């Protein structure tokens, strides 16, 4: 079946560095992509989203890039802080009724100060 996956299960960075978390997806019919952050003991929280008609979207300290040619999604976090330490998931969905978000396997980001 088709699924969303992540390139690296873990990423360790120093405080202040920029972080890049990557995700490869295989369903070319996906219309909408979301990055979620999950802190220990909590549910996933929305970070940023992007639709398939865009290739870049910026938020506060975060940027999502979408490359539909190679089916690649990335999350860039600027000036990473210890509070950014969490598991990050990309998720995809088609813009059809009766479908659900499909999640990738997650990347654990560890930020050391």
């Amino acid at each position, binding site marked *: 079946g088709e699924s969303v996956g992540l390139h690296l299960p873990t990423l360790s960075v120093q405080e202040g560095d920029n972080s890049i978390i990557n995700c490869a997806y295989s369903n070319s019919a996906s*219309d*909408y992509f*979301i990055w979620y952050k*999950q802190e220990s*003991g*909590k*549910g*996933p*929280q*929305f970070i940023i*989203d992007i*639709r398939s008609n865009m290739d870049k979207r910026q938020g506060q300290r975060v940027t999502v890039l979408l490359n539909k040619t190679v089916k690649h999604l990335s999350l860039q976090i600027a000036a990473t802080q210890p509070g950014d330490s969490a*598991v990050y*998931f990309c998720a995809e*969905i*088609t*813009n*059809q*009724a*009766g*479908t*659900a*978000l*499909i*999640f990738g*396997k*997650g990347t*654990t980001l560890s930020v050391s100060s």
Partner: protein
Amino acid sequence: DTAVSQTPKYLVTQMGNDKSIKCEQNLGHDTMYWYKQDSKKFLKIMFSYNNKELIINETVPNRFSPKSPDKAHLNLHINSLELGDSAVYFCASTPSDSGANVLTFGAGSRLTVL
């Protein structure tokens, strides 16, 4: 006020028992979901209800039975619990089932089967 609330947060039980997890959302959303997160953090869709109607039922053992008494509630009942049912179960909701919507998740219910 918590948007999506699940109870209990922790549940420890013996194999063979029957247990339920409850979920309520106060966001006025029409669609609710149950996801299962395994020990490797992988999140997998189990069920989805739109306005009390089942719309997604993934390959889940029929020991799992969701129930939606109204669109603000989606409960999960599990019969004859097995060791492999140990996981964190997340409830989530979206405004509608039209696909491109952000899911709002609850804090999770950690089920441990001994």
